[in-house]
């Protein structure tokens, strides 16, 4: 049991991260990561849906016929997305308006259907819920990293408009990291999302490479150079 928990944690957060390794759910990942608060809002919503749908799919896994499992999973996911959407409309109305179409679009996030099919439909509810939690955290983490990168580059701030999420107290959270910064608009526009995700992917691959190849091999690659 603990072994499975450790493995799920490592897979969800790093080795099988939905955003950086499976490259699933890129549409919301690229579209909504233009600020930390947007990223946090969508990340939490996705996380919640993922945990709930994984648990439910796991609970009903013996009662669903193989032939119709995909429509059933989509139905389950769509119900939870509707719940999350209505709750956000009720309690985080401003944020709901900002995120707009991307909240209902969580239904089509392949990362969620992928986990239902690949993990939750074959494992007990406890583990499935934990898998959903870790995958959701991994996805939200990538969203947050990309959101922070783009917001910092585009406006020189972090957690701008935090009041959308945390109420009036959130205004104190707003950080101006680079005062007097002109702003690099490209980072907030769609190209900035692609460039940022590309850089994040490169960074992750670089870290993995560093870990997989300790120093001797790196040195061994060098002697080809003249001099």
């Amino acid at each position, binding site marked *: 049991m603990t072994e499975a928990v450790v493995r799920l944690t490592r897979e969800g957060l790093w080795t099988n991260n939905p955003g950086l390794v499976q490259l699933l759910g890129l549409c919301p990942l690229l579209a909504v990561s233009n600020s930390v608060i947007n990223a946090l809002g969508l990340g939490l919503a996705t996380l919640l849906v993922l945990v709930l749908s994984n648990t439910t799919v796991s609970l009903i896994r013996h009662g669903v016929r193989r032939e119709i499992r995909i429509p059933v999973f989509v139905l389950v996911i769509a119900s939870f997305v509707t719940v999350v959407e209505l709750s956000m409309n009720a309690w985080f109305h401003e944020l709901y308006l900002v995120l707009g179409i991307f909240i209902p679009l969580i239904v089509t996030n392949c990362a969620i259907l992928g986990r239902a099919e690949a993990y939750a439909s074959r494992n007990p509810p406890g583990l499935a819920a934990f898998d959903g939690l870790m995958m959701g955290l991994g996805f939200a983490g990538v969203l947050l990293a990309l959101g922070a990168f783009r917001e910092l580059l585009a406006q020189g701030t972090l957690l701008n408009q935090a009041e959308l999420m945390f109420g009036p107290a959130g205004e104190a959270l707003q950080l101006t990291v680079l005062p007097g910064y*002109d*702003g*690099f*608009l*490209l980072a907030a*526009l769609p*190209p900035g999302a692609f*460039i940022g995700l*590309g850089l994040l992917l490169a960074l992750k691959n670089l870290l993995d490479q560093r870990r997989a190849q300790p120093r001797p091999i790196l040195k061994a*690659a060098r002697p080809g*150079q*003249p001099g």
Partner: protein
Amino acid sequence: MTVPAFRMAGPPHIAPSGSVPAIMRSVLLALIPGTLAMILIFGWGVLINVLIAVAVALPCEALMLRLRNRPMEPFLQDGSAVVTAVLLALALPPLTPWWMPAVGVALALVLGKHLYGGLGFNPFNPAMVGYAALLVSFPGQMTVWLPPTIGPSGSLGLMDSLHYALSGSLRGGLELDALTQATPLDQIRTGLGLELTVGEIRTEPGFGLLAGAGWQWVNLLFLAGGAWLMHRRVIAWQIPMGVLLGLAVPALVFWTANPDQYAPPLLHLLSGGAMLAAFFIATDPVSAATTPRGRFCFGVGIGVLTWVIRTWGGYPDGIAFGVLLMNMAVPLIDRYTRPRIHGRGKPGPGTGERS
């Protein structure tokens, strides 16, 4: 006496027109007259931009070569980074803070060139990648031009230009707006918006005999440099001719139909970056089409897109977007214009005949 080695390239056995450094040197030489004219007409800022861009380009190139574990010397000395830097700097407005050419060149070389695999592998023209990134990010600063003046009276002196480049403000509390003037293409756009005719707009200050005052000379000198490059066979004639025709033919058609609403073809040819783009930017051997017919199609596409963006688009000049859009179409163009192999039938795009 040593007998030169018999080196056989692949068929059709025509020696290439020169090495990369030789080509880049010729391009830089051919840029000199137009660049001198720009400095004379728009002031020292042009020269400062070029120097900053080159000074940033070389360390960027060296850094990326080092990160990619590539040999430093041959790539640093081939001059391709310098050509990219100079082309980008010439496309920038003459008065910019120092970080504009620096950021543009860094984006051009790092994102536009090396992340795709370096010289020879970049699908997009690096200079235009940098330019488009700057235009999208800083639209305000990118459309501020100085009025064309010849002689010391009008444009800023060397020290004033340097001061602006380094600090982003003018000496003596002068406001930038007091000095700047819209480019002729901008003037036409705003004029047409105010329901003036092209004829009326051309009587405003800033217009000369053929096109915008000053701009016409810059473009004519870039044309001269480009003609020299074509004469030396450094660039093929298909791309520049394609660009100029693609720009002139729709302009001619619409201008004949309604000379009040559409600018004449000569004005299009001698405005903005038309000549610089036709002879120096679109002809980048890496990101352009490679077959002869394909090169012509590529050029025509750039010309037509530039005219469309200038006439109906939201930006004053459309060259950067025209070049980038056509860069995307290059694989398709090359596929459909593959030349016939001697002794074989017509190659269809689907036959997949490669060798």
